[in-house]
């Protein structure tokens, strides 16, 4: 890059249209609208055990493979468990599983990204080469290999997914931290005598929060789908765990005779992903507006 272009011009480019002393971040209708489904979902997840007429592995007395009826809202599965109850509890399992992987990914990735971004130089180089390595590999294929190696279990599946998931977050966090570190505010803070840790924690990392949140929300759907796909090829949560992906994958053989068995959990996956995606999308557009307006 040759000449440095001045960012100059009238300051209005940066502050126009913003009311003085307005409150902050996630304000705006779009986000609130999208929060409603997620809020309802969270509530369902919280009180799922209470809502569910039966336990996740309990048998509904109406019998096996019964079609939906007032006694079994979404019918029963091949061994007579109540599909509705299982879905309620499955949403919980899937949601927590997805959140688990995402959180683990965020923590590992965030840590690595923050360290790389904050230290720069050699540390950055080494950490980012490792991250790049993981990023340059096809995550699902790698996950399959890892689970196949460790043996399928929900725990192993989650570990494998976390292993392939964190690099995204490392990348995002590092990118943001680097970008922020190059901004004058980081230098200004440094000149103000702020310690290195505080600089990273208070002046750099919070800036990465927004893109990370967006990615996290978009990832919920992806992860549940990934779990479903793994279950389908026999590498998912072991039975009888009411995990939505596994329920749908294992129920697939009943698609023609007893369609509710695979379709109901798949619809729940879609619903879950839709809610998370809507929120992510809304946050995304909101942040987008904030940064470009």
């Amino acid at each position, binding site marked *: 890059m040759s000449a440095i272009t001045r*960012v100059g011009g009238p300051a209005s480019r940066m502050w126009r249209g913003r009311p003085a002393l307005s409150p*902050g971040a996630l304000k705006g209708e779009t986000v609130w609208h999208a929060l409603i489904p997620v809020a309802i979902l969270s509530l369902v997840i919280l009180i799922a055990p209470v809502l569910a007429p039966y336990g996740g592995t309990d048998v509904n007395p109406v019998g096996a493979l019964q079609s939906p009826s007032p006694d079994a809202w979404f019918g029963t599965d091949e061994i007579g468990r109540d599909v509705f109850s299982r879905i309620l509890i499955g949403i919980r399992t899937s949601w927590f599983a997805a959140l688990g992987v995402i959180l683990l990914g965020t923590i590992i990735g965030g840590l690595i990204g923050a360290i790389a971004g904050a230290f720069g130089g050699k540390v950055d180089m080494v950490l980012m080469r490792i991250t790049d390595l993981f990023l340059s590999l096809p995550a699902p294929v790698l996950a399959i290999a890892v689970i196949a190696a460790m043996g399928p279990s929900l725990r192993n599946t989650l570990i494998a997914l976390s292993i392939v998931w964190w690099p995204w977050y490392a990348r995002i966090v590092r990118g943001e931290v680097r970008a922020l570190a190059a901004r004058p*505010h980081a230098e200004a803070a440094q*000149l103000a005598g702020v*310690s290195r840790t505080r600089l990273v924690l208070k*002046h750099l990392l919070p*800036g990465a929060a927004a893109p990370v949140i967006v990615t996290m929300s978009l990832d919920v759907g992806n992860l549940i789908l990934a779990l479903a796909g793994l279950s389908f090829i026999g590498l998912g949560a072991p039975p009888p765990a009411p995990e939505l992906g596994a329920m749908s994958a294992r129920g697939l053989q009943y698609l023609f005779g007893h369609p509710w068995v695979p379709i109901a959990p798949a619809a729940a996956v879609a619903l879950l992903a839709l809610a998370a995606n809507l929120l992510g999308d809304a946050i995304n557009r909101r942040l987008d507006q904030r940064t470009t307006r």
Partner: protein
Amino acid sequence: MTGTGPVLDVQDLHVTFASSGGDVHAVRGASLQIAPGEVVGLVGESGSGKSVLGLTALGLLPRKPEPRLEGVVLLDGLDMITATDEDMRARRGTDISAVFQDPMGSLNPSMRIGAQVAEAAGGATDEEVAEMLAATGIPEPEHKARAYPHELSGGLRQRVMIAMALSRHPKLIIADEPTTALDVTVQAKVLDLLAAASRERGVALLLVTHDLGVAARICDRIAVAYAGRIVEEGTAAQLLQQPHHPYTVGLLASRPRLDGSIAGGDLPTLPGRPPDPRLPLAGCAFAPRCPAADAQCAGPLAIHVNGERRNECHHPGVLTRWPEGGPHAGRRDPILLKAPNPVVAPAMVRGVPPEPAVVVRGAVREFERPKPFPFAKRPAPFTAVAGVDLEVPHAGSVAIVGESGSGKSTLLRMIVGLLEPTAGDVTLGPGAPPQMIFQDAGASLTPWMPIGKQIEERLAALDVPSSERGARVAATLEAVGLPAEAQTAVPRALSGGQRQRAAIARAIAVPPALLACDEPVSALDVSLAAQVLNLLCHLRETLDIALLFVTHDLAAARAVADEVVVMQRGEIVERAATEDLFTDPQHPYTRELLAAVPEIHAMAVPA
């Protein structure tokens, strides 16, 4: 329809954007005519609706949020308000074209220059493109036509923009801040080119700018915009010599001039801010800021037309000179800040001359250049600062001027310790470590942290006991002229000028021995700039802070500095006391710099 009438005839234009915080009235009844071949300047503070007016004429207002348009905008007979998209599109390029502010952003980064010019010309051969480029003074036009925008300098890019704007011989060019992003010397050349091109070809030019000096340099006529209206209009000479509207007087006064200094005094400033574009206006919009306003000013608008001249002041000509004294009159003595700080206060012994704030000896800074390919030999490093000696006396004020890329910022960053010099020494005087004010105030504040917290951080770093911090933060904010609420505000919630004050507040919360300022006002419009410059000078006086001040604005340098240093290609080419430098420049480069300053020569200083 064509020929005799104005190329652009704006009558009582209203542009309103519907936004979530209420309707934004960007333009509120502006009227403006431009005759064929005429060069008209449109000046005014930020947010006065200049760009919106230009874009309306182009039919290029953003679609989201949807603007509401009222009035008439006749472009060579076609009403751009009622015209269909297709009609407007057909006029663009042929009847009207544009040059925008940021030459980097305004060119498609992934398309060769030549292709973009050819496209603007509605199809052209390579030879024709080369000719067009050559006509705007681009060297080696055939070669440059094959370049991508990022491979050209800012000045060249803007010339390309101009070549594109001229390519189809339009009747009117709208140039929106075409030179703001350029270096002073380049700025002058580009301006002259625009003016020459439009005069030679008889193309009318609407030059949108916030700098009266820029307008004065080339315009036949100047229109002054305020709060979405044209408040004064006239020939350049009339308007500059005998402004009738107090706002014009204020604008003129707050421009630091090459012949003026504020050593001791203040740059006159326009107090206050333009009205909120979301609020309805009754009467004169400028009244709240006007020293000559009275009850009448709240009444219906008074519009005076007299031949070429037109103004909307209730008492035209009442103000010939902006009254002395800026907004800081009452806040000259920030006692609390001066209170000796046991940890950081310089051990001053009466009688002994204080040590200089900083001494730089033979400072060199090199930057490694990337290898062109993996196993290549590393190319010789790039020398940004090539052996600089510099001394800033205790509580002194030194300005560094010079072209873009001459190493000014690099030098500053070495001085404050953000960069290690490759060679040479930087010796800091006693006192609190140096602080720095950046060009982009917004970017120099942590976006999510309240201003108060950011100031407190610095206090904490210097071991100011936590019990004292609150009071000190409040006092500092007051000292820089920020309201107390700013303490809890995040930077985004402040205006550009306020943000720069906040940055200054943090820097002086514990007065440093040296305050390095890297173009602290170039991102602000004239009146805000003057306010900030004043503030810096006051702080220097009251707190004994030495100022090291980087700028490319020589007038600003003259206003604040005791001594000026001229840099070129990493070296100091001239160094002199301010007065000497301006009256008797030695180095040819200094002379070139001085000549390029857009100065209002014709203007008699209002007495």
